[in-house]
């Protein structure tokens, strides 16, 4: 069964590139996309994704607050936070707000896929896409 992913990032091009990438993966599909935390919270309620891949730095509502609200409403939804900053504080903040994973944008796409598979419980090691 394919994992439904909601992508939340204020950077539209990043969302577009990520969608093109996920489109080639048989085990995942993009359920929707959000440009800020508020939209992400709303769309989680509407689309019920398995996983939210969300940037921390976003306007209106950042990824940390959005994660808190998502987890409060839908504890089973997995959240992996992304950040351009690879600081310990960001990683700690991600853990404290209930995120299931944290990724610096400096990491590779292969590492991202590995963490997404781990978070969603897919233990398959076969690199289907990367």
């Amino acid at each position, binding site marked *: 069964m394919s994992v439904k992913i909601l992508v939340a990032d204020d*950077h*539209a*091009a*990043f969302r*577009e*590139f*990520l969608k*093109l*990438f996920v489109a080639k993966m048989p085990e995942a599909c993009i359920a929707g996309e959000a440009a800020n935390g508020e939209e992400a919270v709303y769309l989680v309620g509407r689309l019920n994704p398995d996983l939210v891949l969300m940037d921390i730095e976003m306007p209106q509502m950042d990824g940390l607050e959005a994660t808190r609200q998502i987890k409060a409403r839908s504890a089973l939804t997995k959240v992996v936070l*992304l950040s*351009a900053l690879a600081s310990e504080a960001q990683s700690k903040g991600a853990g404290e707000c209930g995120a299931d994973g944290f*990724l610096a*944008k*400096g*990491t*590779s*796409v292969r590492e*991202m896929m590995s963490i997404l598979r781990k978070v969603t419980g897919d233990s398959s090691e076969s690199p289907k896409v990367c």
Partner: protein
Amino acid sequence: MDVRTETTITPASVCSTSTIDRGVQSEQSADYIRVLIVGVRMYTQLLAEALRQDQNFDAVEAGCEQAAAAASNHRPHVAVIDAGSDREPSKASDIVRQLRVLHPQTQVIILLESNRPQLVLEAFRAGANGVLSRDESLDILKKCICSVHRGQVWASSVELRLVLETLRSALPSQLVDFRGKPLLSKREQDVVRGIALGMTNREIAEHLKLSVHTVKNYVFKIFDRLGVFSRMEVALYSMSQAAKG
């Protein structure tokens, strides 16, 4: 006269001119464009992957520190430098300068987080052939790459306006050679100012009370004396002189 020299002058028309040219290019050329994407890994990998899905492009990615080595290995036609956040604006410009020296045949585009005037000007001063917002769609980025690959300058009307506003506030009194001797006559300098301000030949002619034909002759002479091929280059040359002076 070359259509491009007539149309490139107007900031608002640059992107549409580029788009038309890119359309012609994609129909006529079967060759792919080798692209090097430099920046933060996850972003560059996803962008390279997205470009590789189009048969007109072959893309590889590299981190900022590996840009020169990657350019040596892959001999890209076009390098796309992701300046990332505004926190380190000089890093992208340094990479552009490095590529300009080591691989002058590679055309360079800088992706900017914002179109802050200083960032846009710094990008062109460093030698970029185009600037583009990081938030533009993949389709626009492809058009930008194709246009720059054809030797054109790419900038949005907003970014060009920023460049022109800078020119307005710092137009040089005259363009000079390395000895300080004027390169252009007073009349030719008047025409250069008109070009830098984004005026058409007709507008320059009206402003200087000359015929359009005479202005065209001046423009050809200016191209010849400055060794440039477009009005944009005249404007950028003028800006570089202003920066020096």
